[in-house]
């Protein structure tokens, strides 16, 4: 005869059980229990159906213009004025490059070029505008290093969020299995 304590223990395993993620001995234990416990059997079935509902949701796709918009965004990003560190390192590279880079008449061409490369067929990569942009992006190493601290701050913000949620973390344990029983 199953006791409430057995049920609590079993229900803590049910989510993994319905995923087939439990080791063999624990799978056995759950099998054995739900064969004789209607409450846990129903809880297992409901959790399994819930997971199935999620799995069967239609998959959404981004818009057909996604690549074109992304290409423009990358191009705009590459043309955006950089913080001082960027400008100072740019100055180190030399005036000629700076002039070429910031020349307004070249900007639309550059944007179109990047767009063509990002959305275009691979053959474009070998063509001249493609090469121009590849080197542009290679010359763009500074923005790459510029963004590294940003990536670090992303991690920080996640950590911070986790701390903000410490109040919630009390329920990070396997909740209250009683919630499962009260059907």
């Amino acid at each position: 005869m199953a006791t409430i304590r057995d049920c609590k223990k079993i229900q803590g395993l049910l989510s993994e059980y319905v995923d087939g993620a439990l080791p063999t001995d624990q799978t056995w234990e759950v099998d054995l229990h739900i064969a004789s416990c209607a409450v846990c059997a129903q809880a297992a079935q409901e959790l399994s159906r819930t997971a199935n509902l999620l799995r069967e949701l239609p998959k959404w796709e981004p818009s057909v213009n996604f690549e074109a918009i992304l290409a423009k965004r990358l191009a705009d990003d590459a043309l955006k004025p950089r913080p001082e560190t960027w400008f100072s390192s740019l100055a180190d590279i030399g005036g000629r490059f700076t002039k070429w880079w910031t020349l307004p008449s070249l900007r639309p061409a550059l944007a179109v070029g990047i767009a063509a490369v990002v959305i275009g067929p691979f053959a474009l990569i070998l063509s001249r505008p493609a090469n121009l942009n590849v080197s542009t992006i290679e010359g763009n190493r500074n923005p790459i290093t510029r963004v590294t601290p940003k990536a670090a701050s992303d991690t920080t913000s996640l950590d911070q969020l986790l701390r903000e949620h410490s109040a919630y973390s009390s329920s990070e344990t396997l909740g209250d299995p009683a919630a499962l029983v009260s059907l």
Partner: protein
Amino acid sequence: MTFARSLNLTQSDTALISRCQKADIAAFNEIVGRYKGRIYNYLYRMTGNAEDAEDLTQETFVRMYTGIASFRADATLSTWLFRIAGNLCVDSFRRNKKARELTRSLDAPLPGDDENHFVTQDIPDMSQAPETVFARKELAGQIQQALQKLPPKLRSSVVLHDIEGLAYEEIAIAEGIPLGTVKSRIFNARVALRDHLKPYLQ
């Protein structure tokens, strides 16, 4: 070119990343094609909003592109992309929350994307008349609403697992949390979703 394309499709993520790190745009293009659907779908389920999902998916690939040099081999490309997307989502929720706080006197707070929104608040009692609820809204809409009721941390884990098909271990890496926390979040999320969706589980 068809041959080159088919060759390219079989290329591993690792190979694409190292090409991308050498500023190979074709490799970047390939990565976008490979992952935009999954990232978009994840962000759509997180935000419940096509416009935000599109914008955040764009931003995910911009960040991937600009941060490719910092990519570390301890993550797979997909866990890395989901991590970027998840962080962008967190930032976006926080911005929305701030904006809402500013206009709180004018507008009633919106349910859903608030980080501190607890699962037990403002849940319509669907057990009353499931037929009418069915008639009014599609099941998919109900599921999305139920997802919106979850705290974002739980929502993210369960979406990554049940919708995007990530393994527990992959979610632990993507979210930077212990394996046990992943399991308990998925468990708690499913229990809450089950409670919201009870009329549809028969």
